[in-house]
């Protein structure tokens, strides 16, 4: 029988929960009574987070919003211009390209990462020789600093020295060099490949953890009932993995949508803006051109899209676990 909290009224004192006396203990005194209160404890526990995030995100964010509503440029304090920057960005053909690219990039990279990550997680879930080493080594793409591994990929895709071209050429698949990064379409797919390579371990390890919580008894029961591997996956595994998957997908979408480093290092947004993303374009406008207000506005365009995607997924998640 759990004690019922007596709450009510507004303001401090009335919110204190009165615990029914437990057998064998005396009334908790002073500090401990303070810590017993759910509300006050919550406030205490949340305070470091709130302070840190408030200072280093909320405040800069508000300043960032102000920037986007002004015509500030480097060294010149701006004046309020309302939504002028947003309108200018919306009509900018490079912005439109960057926006389309970002959606395309995020969509395909996430799908690949999810499918491959899930597959890899299923494979790693089994017992085999060298399981530990393989599991650990699969994480390497995620561990290497992004900047450096992207340089390595850039070297592999290099227009002149690409080892991939060499390989394909020697094995007779191609007769002329593939324009990995010199062609707009190729360039985008190369970026997606690198992003998938880098992000798949994150999916795999999280889904693996989720898989490990599924009791093998469930699988046994299902196979006794006559289900084969494919069915078992869809009927047993997938429903139980949905919550974990959703959380992982949400975070991955956020990271990929606002990705900056990978494109900056791999292609710089080229050729001719074919691989520009919102983050790289915002950076180019804000820093290289010095138009901070416009750069901030472009960055902010990401927010509603992300918010919508995340909100939809969270609603779905809440439906799954709530009921």
């Amino acid at each position, binding site marked *: 029988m759990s004690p019922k*909290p007596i709450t009510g009224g507004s303001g401090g004192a009335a919110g204190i929960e009165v615990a029914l006396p437990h057998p064998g203990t005396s009334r908790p005194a002073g500090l401990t009574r303070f810590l017993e209160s759910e509300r006050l404890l919550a406030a205490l526990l949340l305070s470091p987070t709130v302070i840190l995030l408030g200072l280093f*995100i909320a405040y800069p964010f508000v300043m960032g919003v102000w920037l986007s509503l002004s015509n500030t440029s480097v060294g010149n304090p701006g004046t309020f211009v309302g939504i002028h920057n947003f309108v200018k960005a919306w009509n900018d053909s490079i912005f439109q390209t960057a926006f389309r690219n970002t959606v395309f990039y995020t969509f395909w990279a996430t799908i690949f990462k999810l499918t491959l990550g899930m597959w890899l997680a299923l494979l790693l879930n089994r017992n085999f020789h060298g399981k530990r080493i393989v599991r650990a080594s699969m994480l390497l793409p995620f561990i290497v600093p992004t900047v*450096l591994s992207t340089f*390595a990929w850039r070297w592999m895709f290099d227009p002149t020295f690409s080892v991939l071209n060499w390989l394909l050429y020697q094995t007779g698949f191609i007769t002329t060099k593939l324009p990995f990064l010199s062609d707009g379409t190729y360039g985008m797919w190369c970026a997606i490949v690198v992003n998938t390579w880098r992000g798949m371990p994150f999916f795999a390890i999280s889904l693996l*953890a989720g898989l490990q919580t599924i009791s093998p008894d469930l699988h046994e029961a299902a196979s006794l009932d006559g289900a084969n591997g494919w069915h078992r996956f869809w009927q047993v595994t997938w429903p139980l993995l949905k919550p974990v998957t959703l959380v992982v997908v949400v975070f991955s979408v956020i990271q990929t949508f606002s990705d*900056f480093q990978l494109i900056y290092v791999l292609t710089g947004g080229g050729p001719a803006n074919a691989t520009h993303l919102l*983050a790289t374009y915002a950076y180019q406008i804000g820093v290289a051109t010095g138009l901070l207000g416009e750069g901030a506005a472009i960055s902010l365009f990401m927010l509603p899209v992300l918010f919508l995607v995340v909100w939809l997924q969270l609603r779905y998640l809440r439906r799954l676990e709530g009921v």
Partner: protein
Amino acid sequence: MVIERRWKRWVYFYIPLTVFVIGTLFPFYWMFITSIRPDAELYRSWRAANNAPFWTLHPTLEHFQDLMAKTSFPHWLWNTFFIACASTLISLFCGLLAGYALGRLKFPMAGTLGTSIFVTYLVPPTLLFIPLANIIRTFQLGDTPWALILTYPTFLIPFSTWLLMGYFKTIPKELEECARIDGATRFGAMIRIIFPIAVPGILSAGIFAFTLSWNEFIYALVFLSSPEKKTVPVGVVSELIRGDIYFWGQLMAGALLGSIPGALVYSFFVEYYVTGLTGSVKG
């Protein structure tokens, strides 16, 4: 029937796994070969007859030596490690407390607060770094590791909070009730009962936080300026890409050496993490 099963195992398991392993690790092999390849070979044309991209007959350690001796690489390694550890600890601390509060305590605005912590994650660093520069200056943290140690948690805390919140939600309330009936305070129950159960969650949040801090680039680029204070990503890129010339050998050596601490942390904790996970959730 045994033969059939073995065939199936190969097709459905061994071959896909091998493909995954090769695909994932090939770039590392490539990085390794480049880092031990002498410069003369690095400059060769791809059509040269003796071009052997996959191996080298004259391996050399000169890139590694140059990297350690002629650049501040050891400093960068230490800086990045220190900053990553400190940010991870701070974000775990905040995330743990916040995750518990949001996951197990009832109080008004819980939902809103949870969502708003999450929403801060949506704000891109490419927007934040300019206003942040102002704050860093106000607190005079410029060119010190503290500029990063205090700003990294901004993207680490939301994720840690959410992960741990999820863990805490799955722990049955009865555990706490029992402890309190036995005389423990709520706070005591939190620390002694609940937190230990969430250790796998704490570890996985910690691992990801460490990795994300290690990888971060733009804040490190903008807030640090002295060469000895830089982190590995920024230092390697700024010192080893000198205008016209990329020192590929050293770049790749730097990439490999720069991954070692992370790999060590992972190999130590992942073991613990996976066994801990399977152990704790049974029953």
